[in-house]
């Protein structure tokens, strides 16, 4: 589409169309593949209706200026992802992406999905709410997955998706050596998985429900997810994950002013005698959660997170926001309470369309007095 329609299509197509450009069967894009990947150029080759069949093929590659890389190959029956999916959930194989749900057709999809991710400088502070900032260390993480994906979009407001397959992971020394290595700072007892990364069979499924006041203005969304990870050659890492993500947007007398809230909870239940490897744990902190803390600041088996944003539109395509985030990451399942929550507050400036935020600047300040500035693609939630 190009710059020509940058402004003229904000109200019809949206900024997100501009993040990528199409060149024949290739689509070039720009974004992030990890919160700490820095800016990442990427290229995707698309071949819909292969040989006049229903089969489509898609091959993607992304390589960041800091050496982060991700590659993905899909073959099967699937709708062409929206451009905004380019470096988003669709690229990395999450079961569903809230922000693209309304663009999916009401039909099924089945495809094989082969992917690799190499993240050379991932961050680990330790586990749980008590992890000390001075314990920051780094590690290199790689994962390969071969999945079969299926799903069905019953209507605009309800869809299901599941993926199952093999997952191979590897943790090693980080590449730049600027920070202490995680393996030097932590041991496998305190941080499970830092010395041993097996192959997994994994299953991941999701259901989402959406209630929308307007096709482009979701009023409420609810996503429920169940995942299962089983080590192939042992029993040390076997666990299930339940998560719930609820979001609501409430206009305050005008679509110009809205209150947006998010409640997210995730719980990993390890089988008896098993543990959850740290690199598969969810985390808080960074551009999307607890925005006064750095990426991956709090990591544990269980997460509890609440966020509230007051958003107001200053002009076409420009939104301002004030937000308050609170949450915690904790290791014991008994910790599900609002005690010991971390807090951040801040403000943001977003470039958006009717459908979604394309990119944003958020400034967050934590209860610890740290102030951080984030530039991020996509919405905070």
């Amino acid at each position, binding site marked *: *589409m*190009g*710059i*020509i*329609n*940058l*402004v*003229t*299509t*904000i*109200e*019809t*197509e949206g900024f997100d169309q501009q993040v990528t*450009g*199409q*060149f*024949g069967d290739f689509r070039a894009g720009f974004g992030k593949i990890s919160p700490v990947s820095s800016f990442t150029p990427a290229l995707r080759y698309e071949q819909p*209706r292969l040989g*006049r069949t229903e089969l489509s093929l898609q091959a993607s590659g992304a390589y960041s200026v800091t050496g982060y890389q991700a590659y993905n190959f899909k073959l099967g029956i699937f709708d062409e992802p929206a451009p905004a999916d380019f470096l988003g959930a669709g690229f990395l194989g999450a079961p569903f992406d809230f922000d693209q749900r309304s663009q999916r057709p009401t039909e099924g999809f089945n495809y094989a999905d082969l992917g690799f991710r190499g993240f050379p400088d991932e961050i680990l502070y330790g586990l749980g709410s008590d992890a000390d900032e001075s314990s920051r260390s780094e590690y290199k993480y790689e994962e390969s997955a071969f999945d079969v994906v299926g799903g069905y979009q019953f209507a605009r407001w309800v869809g299901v998706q599941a993926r199952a397959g093999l997952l191979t992971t590897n943790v090693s020394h980080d590449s730049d050596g600027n920070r202490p290595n995680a393996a030097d700072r932590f041991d496998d007892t305190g941080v499970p998985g830092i010395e041993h990364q097996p192959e997994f069979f994994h299953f991941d499924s999701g259901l989402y429900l959406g209630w929308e006041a307007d096709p482009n203005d979701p009023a409420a969304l609810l996503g429920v997810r169940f995942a299962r990870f089983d080590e192939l050659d042992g029993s040390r890492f076997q666990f299930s994950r339940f998560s719930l993500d609820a979001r609501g947007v409430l206009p305050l*007398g*005008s*679509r*110009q*002013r809205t209150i947006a809230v998010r409640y997210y909870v995730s719980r990993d239940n390890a089988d008896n005698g098993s543990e959850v490897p740290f690199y598969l744990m969810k985390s808080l902190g960074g551009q999307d959660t607890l925005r006064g803390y750095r990426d991956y600041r709090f990591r544990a088996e269980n997460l509890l997170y609440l966020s509230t944003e*007051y958003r*107001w*539109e*200053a*002009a*076409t395509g*420009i939104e*301002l926001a*004030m937000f308050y985030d609170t949450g915690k990451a904790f290791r014991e399942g008994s910790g599900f309470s609002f005690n010991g929550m971390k807090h951040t507050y801040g403000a943001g400036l977003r470039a958006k369309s009717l459908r979604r935020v394309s990119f944003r600047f958020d400034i967050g300040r934590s209860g610890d007095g740290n102030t951080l500035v984030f530039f991020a693609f996509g919405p905070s939630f």
Partner: protein
Amino acid sequence: MGALVKTLLRVAFTIAVVFGALHIAFAFQGGKFRWDDPIRRDPDNLSIPQPTDRPLSKAIDLLQKTFTKPAGGRIQSDNVNTLGEVPDSSWFTNRMSRSVMTIDELVRGPDQGDGPDMSGTWTITGAKTEGITPGFTIRDASGDIYFIKFDPLNWPQMATSAEIIGTKFFHAFDYDVPENYLVYWRPEFEIDSEAEVLWDTGQVEALSEGYVRDVLKSVPRRADGTIQLVASKLLSGRPIGPFDFQGTRSDDPNDIFLHQDRRELRGLRVFAASLNHNDSDSVNTLDMYYSDPDGSNYVRHHLIDFGTALGSGAVQPHARRVGNEYYIEFKPALKAALTLGIWDRPWRHLDYPVYTSIGRFESSYFQPDEWKPDYPNPAFDKMTFQDALWATRTVMRFSDEAIRAIVATGEIEDPEAEAYLSQTLMERRDKIVDFYLAEINPIDGFTVDGGGLDFVNLGVDAGMASECRYDYSWNEYDNESGAVMPTDEKGTVSTTTIPVPSGQAPFAMVRIQSNCEGRPKWSSPIDVYLRNGDSLSVVGVERADPD
């Protein structure tokens, strides 16, 4: 070699034009009025070498028009004749501006035929993805070429009906527009072996049946399986890109008036406001290098693409912003930002029906002087009340019956929606008339008949005042020196006929002021000039713009 010939031709042409202009200037120097005033035809159809194809970037145009202002203040339009009328030209053909068109003329619009030949299968010869909606170029059974456009899937009739209705209106507003036909097409087609699709990236590739089928899957079908579409007939000549609303086209020697100072481009603001044609910028214009039957080759200027007029945003209904705020406008943005959104744009809270076949179109909040296109237009910005009066006179010539007849050409199936659209257009027309006629002395249409100077008061005709008196004072006018010599002939009349004194002076001038209750701005004077030639005739009209 070709370039040398072209350069020599250009030099020869320029010399001819300069000498011609000097000849005329010397022959008629010193007078306000020349022998051929008031001119009815702007001779801007002199043969010229073919200008280059000049693409225009909407993004650059938007930024340029948003962040720069045209030079000069609000001066009067340059291209009007001595009566203040716009002569026929390559830009404009007086139709409704000259007299009320018949319903048949309005409904036929620019159409010269009956549209594409449906007796055989169409051949798709190309496709474009550029712009808001995709479309195809087709060759009909008779071999004529059309560009076809569709409605968005969830908004049947909205864009295509708007295109047809907009075409009729803008033709009646006297602009050159394409022949656009509303067609119900059963999608049986062939693809030309050389057909290509032009992607918006500029890439060209062979057009596949799969692509055509994909596009057709995303457009609404009627109950009988046909598709409502607009078939736009290829304009005559060779396309050389859009025109700009400021400056002139440097490679067109006929283009001598700054576009922002052309009355028909300034007055377009009033017409665009009446139809909520927010996309009335350069991208929706097209210059054609045209060969007329007399052998003259020159540039003709067209308005195209009315699929975003009325309530249609082409792919969805207009956003509420449309017509109320530019894409980029700092004052409301700052107000909203600094008040944390507590200050709200009032147009967000309008309550009006949104019909599937119309989109979002209203008249209750509409204020003619507040209406805005998507981004600033230098010609619109320089519109004076005289320009507005000229355009308003045309707008008020559309009777209720005429508006209903034009709306009916959109063949909107929902009678309630069709009635709403007609009613909304009438109300917008009335608001335009009420606003602009209140701002300036609205007497017009001067003719000499028998012993009197007749005129009409557009404001009284519009019901804005019931009784008026007109103060007048006659003067002799020396066309050579410009001297005005008062006479004793003055008085007041309560009719729209002023007695013309007998006299032998070659030129006379009468100054008229209207006195109508509650209309103080109508007292701004108007000078009407009469030439005493073979017969007494009106040769000039000069108005004063209110402060």
